[in-house]
């Protein structure tokens, strides 16, 4: 850790001394940051991604999928049974008109979505398909559908056990439902688990919610304007993030919040256009997805490789079971916590099943992945770690190249989208991280400022480091949150089931009514 800090201090000193550093020297800063970062985070990453003994299958991936399956069964396929009801709730059909002016279901969902729809959908999917092949898409969709039940569980609890302060502000999230829920059930250790979750949440905020975003935003920008040192992008991002979260310049965040949804729609429309133009290949693409899902079509690790990648990226993208969404959803105004649970189950659907699948289909259809004509299997790159691509691209560059093959100018739009998605995800995660931080260290100006400054520093590190170590750490930190969160959800899920039974009975009896607007 000391070496890591020293390197950072040196880098920071260099930055402040002279901005126009020679390119060569700047590159070495990037390399140093990268090296120090990889060394510092290695043990943590190895622990989280440790395989089952005698296999290459990381236990954490199974952990998430088994949980999502258990929640799906325990709540009797809540994602199917209450899907239509969730839509009605978002439309406001069950909202008392006298509550107008409070946070609506739609707003809570949109806020949570802007935190999850980010580079996971664009870059993360490219990583998954690039390593796991088209088959990864199948497992990703399956994980997305199952994940809806995990999201339902955690968001219901998030609202039920949130803190409502005297001045009317609210704070919610796993740390609150773990400590209060365990207390209510008479279980020991709630407080400790909540603290452990908070620590991981801070790491997750700095990793996936920050460094990964900065890193891929830089990759996209440098792919268009030419290669330049990552710390420059990082510094610019850090200044803007600083202006918003420290300087309180709300207008930047407000503009982003308003533009991001349209960018999301634009992204899906562009993907649909490319799919329509190549409609004759859609059948083939799905063929590749199904064949790849069960055979791997030559990817590293075969079928298991495809499955691991698909599950990993789905979890990283929609964060079901991670607990972050419970923080975002808990601000809603409702008398029935479970209604927010229903609404939140739409999140993995929009995020993973719709947006991620679009990205995957475009990458597959654009034929960026090189197939061995003779065998019909994918060819691996020289290192044998991923599928060889036409221009040797990976991550966001691969998505960008795939879109460019259909719409040549789209990378420019994508660059704007990537920057905005990255930015809005960072702002959302700075909030999640801050909530965990204040849970640990208490609310107060100094405490909050400390976290915000650390957050900004990590933006620069994230942009400067290379994709490998950043993505490993980001994944590890986010999954570490899921370890604690899901463990606790197993104990707390009976509370949610009681809520579900009571609510569905009252919905059926007509006690819970629609309002005429």
């Amino acid at each position, binding site marked *: 850790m000391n070496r890591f800090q020293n390197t950072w201090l040196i880098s920071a000193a260099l930055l402040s001394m002279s901005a126009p550093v020679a390119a060569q020297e700047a590159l070495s800063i990037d390399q140093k940051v990268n090296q120090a970062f990889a060394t510092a985070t290695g043990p943590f990453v190895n622990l989280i991604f440790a395989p089952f003994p005698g296999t290459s299958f990381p236990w954490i991936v199974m952990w998430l999928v088994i949980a999502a399956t258990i929640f799906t069964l325990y709540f009797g396929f809540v994602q199917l049974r209450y899907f239509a009801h969730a839509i009605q709730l978002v439309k406001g059909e069950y909202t008392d008109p*006298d509550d107008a002016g409070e946070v*609506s279901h739609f707003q*809570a969902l949109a806020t949570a979505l802007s935190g999850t729809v980010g580079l996971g959908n664009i870059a993360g999917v490219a990583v998954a398909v690039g390593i796991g092949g088209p088959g990864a898409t199948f497992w990703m969709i399956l994980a997305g559908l199952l994940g809806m039940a995990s999201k339902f569980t955690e968001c219901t609890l998030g609202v039920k056990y949130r803190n409502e302060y005297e001045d009317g502000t609210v704070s919610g999230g796993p740390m609150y439902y773990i400590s209060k829920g365990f207390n209510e059930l008479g279980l020991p250790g709630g407080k400790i688990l909540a603290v452990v979750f908070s620590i991981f949440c801070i790491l997750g905020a700095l990793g996936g919610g920050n460094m990964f975003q900065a890193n891929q935003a830089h990759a996209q920008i440098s792919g268009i304007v030419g290669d330049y040192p990552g710390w420059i992008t990082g510094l610019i991002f850090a200044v803007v993030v600083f202006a918003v979260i420290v300087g309180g310049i709300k207008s930047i*965040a*407000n503009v982003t*919040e308003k533009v*991001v949804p349209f960018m999301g729609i634009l992204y899906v429309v562009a993907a649909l256009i490319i799919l329509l133009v190549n409609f004759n290949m859609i059948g083939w693409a799905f063929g590749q997805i199904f064949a790849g899902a069960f055979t791997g079509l030559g990817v590293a690790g075969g079928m298991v490789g495809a499955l691991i990648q698909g599950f990993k990226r789905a979890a990283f993208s929609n964060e079901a079971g991670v607990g972050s969404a419970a923080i975002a959803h808990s601000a*809603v*105004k409702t008398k029935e916590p479970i209604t927010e649970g229903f609404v939140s189950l739409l999140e993995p659907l929009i995020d993973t099943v719709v947006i991620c699948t679009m990205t995957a289909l475009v990458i597959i259809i654009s034929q960026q992945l090189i197939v061995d004509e003779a065998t019909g299997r994918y060819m691996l790159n020289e290192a044998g770690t991923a599928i060889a691509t036409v221009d040797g691209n990976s991550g966001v560059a691969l998505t960008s190249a795939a879109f460019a093959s259909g719409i040549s100018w789209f990378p420019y739009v994508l660059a704007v989208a990537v920057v905005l998605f990255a930015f809005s995800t960072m702002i959302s995660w700075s*909030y999640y991280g801050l909530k965990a931080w204040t849970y640990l260290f208490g609310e107060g100006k100094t405490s909050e400022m400390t976290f915000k400054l650390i957050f900004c520093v990590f933006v620069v590190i994230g942009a400067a480091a290379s994709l490998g170590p950043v993505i490993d750490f980001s994944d590890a930190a986010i999954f570490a949150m899921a370890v604690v969160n899901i463990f606790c959800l197993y104990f707390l899920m009976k509370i949610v089931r009681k809520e579900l039974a009571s609510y569905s009975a009252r919905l059926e009896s007509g006690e819970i009514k629609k309002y005429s607007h």
Partner: protein
Amino acid sequence: MAAKIVIGLDGTDTGERALAFAKDLASRMDVCELLVAYVIEWSPFTFQTAEENERRHKRREEEIALATSRIVDPAVAKLKEAGFAATGLVRHGDVAETLNRLSNENGATQIVVGRASSDGFTKRLFGSSTQNLVMHADVPVTVVG
């Protein structure tokens, strides 16, 4: 039964004229109750940051307190001084929809509003709240210029 008139204020001069008109109208009736309403334009379908959401409840209370003390209470006081039976309400929502709902809920027979004070692009695109109210209201609407 007393006639009831909803007066929609918007904090501008035209709102004041609507108030004056309603007073005049009420003075010609035997028994008339006046309901002064101020609607804070708000949509449940906007995009907000997590921080805004966290403070939304507090902000809403502040908005209601402000509108009540600055606009509705003074208007109600003036009406009462002049000898009318008057009450006040502040609500969030779509202005036209909410005024119509309030008039239905309170059994009002008429709505009096000022003419649109907004101008420009948004009005051309979506029409003004006044236009929407006139077109969709369930009771007669008087627009004061």
